[in-house]
């Protein structure tokens, strides 16, 4: 509790952790820095609500999470996305209609799953791919998958229907897979 009354040590103790957390959830360093700053400022404003039940770090992380949700809520457009929207990964005509185009279909990954999961470079590529998700799919993906919010909460915060959410999550996955294949399994 004493640390909280001393902003200097507060920043020294938690800024890096909060920054790394933020950076894993947003698309660039500038936004992450701003979110960390806002988190500290909100923290000091709401010191009264810190009950000491959780650790300072947990408490500050909870504030940061809220800031991340707000960040994506502001960006979200509640425009409908439909499953039927065009996707050039899949064919358009005749018997190929809605089946994988050979040129866009998943290539074979030379993959030892266990080894790959330990590989830090692969994680770095994956993180970059997540950061580069198109904005329209990113909000949903970050909140549902990275923040592990419940589906209903995500829909409420972003003001989208649940079928919309499923389509967005799916689009984000298609994109991530493409990105990882290009960036890692070439």
């Amino acid at each position, binding site marked *: 509790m004493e640390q909280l009354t001393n902003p200097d040590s507060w*920043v020294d103790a938690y800024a890096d952790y909060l920054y790394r957390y933020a950076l894993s959830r947003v698309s660039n360093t500038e936004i992450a820095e701003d979110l960390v700053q806002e988190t500290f400022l909100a923290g*000091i404003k709401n010191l009264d609500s810190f009950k000491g039940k959780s650790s300072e770090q947990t408490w500050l992380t909870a504030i940061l999470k809220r800031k991340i949700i707000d960040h994506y809520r502001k960006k979200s457009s509640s425009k409908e996305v439909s499953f039927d929207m065009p996707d050039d990964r*899949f064919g358009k005509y005749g018997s190929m209609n*809605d089946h994988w185009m050979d040129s866009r279909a998943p290539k074979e990954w030379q993959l030892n799953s266990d080894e*790959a999961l330990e590989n*830090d470079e692969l994680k770095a590529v*994956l993180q970059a791919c997540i950061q580069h998700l198109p904005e329209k799919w990113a909000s949903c993906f970050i909140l549902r998958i*990275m923040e592990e919010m419940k589906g209903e909460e995500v829909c409420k915060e972003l003001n989208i229907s649940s079928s919309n959410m499923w389509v967005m999550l799916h689009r984000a996955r*298609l994109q991530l897979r493409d990105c990882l294949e290009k960036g890692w399994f070439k």
Partner: protein
Amino acid sequence: MDTKGKMMITCKEATFLISKKQQDKLNWFERLQLNLHLMMCKYCRRFAEQVSFITKAIASLKKKVMNQSAGVSLSDEKKQLIKKKLLEQKK
């Protein structure tokens, strides 16, 4: 997605089900549709494997972010700025 009780689904539909399966349980009919499709489609089998790998990789990435003690850090410049702002706010 509306597959209207049809047995044969397209790759576009199958990939959607594969994706959905990462978060949610499919109902028995969706499972039937998907498994039937996977038996016949090499690309979707690959897609399914790769997506489930990505799901695991994301879990491991999140863990790494939480445990990381060195490496990425906030610049000193920004830290000083935040300290200054906090002091101002306290006054």
